[in-house]
């Protein structure tokens, strides 16, 4: 330092601190998302139990028949699952990705940081992609639509008539529509970060380049 020309060492503490905070935020949002999914799974289980319970009660003790109850309970549950999906895949996911974008920038800027997000982006489909996570909610919703459809068809004794064919077509349409809506709402990880981060180079990289 005697001649005053010696370069100051790179400040590692501030990037490390910010990186740590970003990681903690990602962990937080992932925990919240996992809670939403656990709630959805429990709801699905409870809905099956409730529908089963409706079928086990004597028909005379109910104001409506069991298939109507199955549609009613299943419909409410479906609406809640859809809401949970929007909360998870649209709202919480964007909060999480806002941090992931910054992590990506930090990983690109500072060579000494671990390249977790870069490594995940080199996979064909980012494991944390909302489009991929949407399959969980699609599975939950579609299984409920299927149960409702089967309940109605069973009530009609599965006879081959116009009404049942229309019902079966409607069920297939709703199965497709539910999946389509959720896939439409949830974008891929790459789509969401495109505006903020140039990942074209990262996608070209092979995992071996990090070895």
């Amino acid at each position, binding site marked *: 330092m005697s001649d005053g020309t010696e370069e100051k060492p790179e400040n590692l503490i501030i990037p490390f601190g910010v990186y740590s905070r970003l990681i903690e935020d990602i962990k937080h949002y992932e925990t919240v998302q*996992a809670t939403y999914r656990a709630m959805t799974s429990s709801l699905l289980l409870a809905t099956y139990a409730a529908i089963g319970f409706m079928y086990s009660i004597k028909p005379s003790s109910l104001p409506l028949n069991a298939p109507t109850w199955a549609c009613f309970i299943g419909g409410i549950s479906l609406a809640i699952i859809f809401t949970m999906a929007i909360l998870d895949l649209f709202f919480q996911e964007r909060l999480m990705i806002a941090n992931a974008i910054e992590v990506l920038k930090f990983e690109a800027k500072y060579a000494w940081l671990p390249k977790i997000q870069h490594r995940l982006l080199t996979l064909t489909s980012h494991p944390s992609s909302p489009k991929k996570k949407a399959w969980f909610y699609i599975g939950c919703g579609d299984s409920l639509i299927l149960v409702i459809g089967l309940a109605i068809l069973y009530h009609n004794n599965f006879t081959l008539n116009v009404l049942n064919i229309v019902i079966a077509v409607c069920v297939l349409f709703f199965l497709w529509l539910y999946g389509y809506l959720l896939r439409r709402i949830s974008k891929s990880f790459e789509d969401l970060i495109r505006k903020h981060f140039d990942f074209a180079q990262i996608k070209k990289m092979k995992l071996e380049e990090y070895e």
Partner: protein
Amino acid sequence: MSDDNIEITGDTDEVDIIDYIENDINTIAFGLDSKMRSLQCHYTILKTRYKKLAYTWLIATFIGYSYFLKGAEDFGHLDHYLIFFALSLLSSIGLYLLYFLDIGIYQQMAEAVFLEAESLEKKFPFLGATNKNIMSLLVEETSYPLVYEAILYGGFTTMLLVVANVSLFFYFSQFNVYLAFSSLFIFFALIILLELSLIFGFNFFKMSRHVQKKFKKKN
């Protein structure tokens, strides 16, 4: 430690000792290693949460079986075998969705962290070699270690689907024996295919395969 490193909070006797981080790559590496470990723990906890939920599904299914077998309730015109079939099938779908979250999403996230932690250990040997040891203990001594992660779900769903298969067989046997046997064999083949795909992954183990490849290349 100098007195500057001690911060007295409030008017109590409580004393917080603050470890100052130095602007030195080794200290930062230590911090990063701690962060990697906390991330690994985080993903393990999330994965465990889904496994706990899978147990809940299984227990609920058993309760459903016992409730039904007790015969306390009248299920009207619904065939008993059909109820068993529906119960088992729907439960296995629920378990499969949990498998998708656990193995399909969080396993890969955990492995990405694991690989980075292992690279960090290689760069800074003073951090120890826990991840390297994990690799040698799990990857070297087992041909395909992550099968053990999937086998839990595989076992659960196999059991439920076998119950579904047998129920369907008895249901169809009331009408036609040939139909019953053909459904038994077709459904059984489907179960085998599904379980194999569950255990060996629908491209979910891409990262796992990479871990294995990397380790074998090194040796």
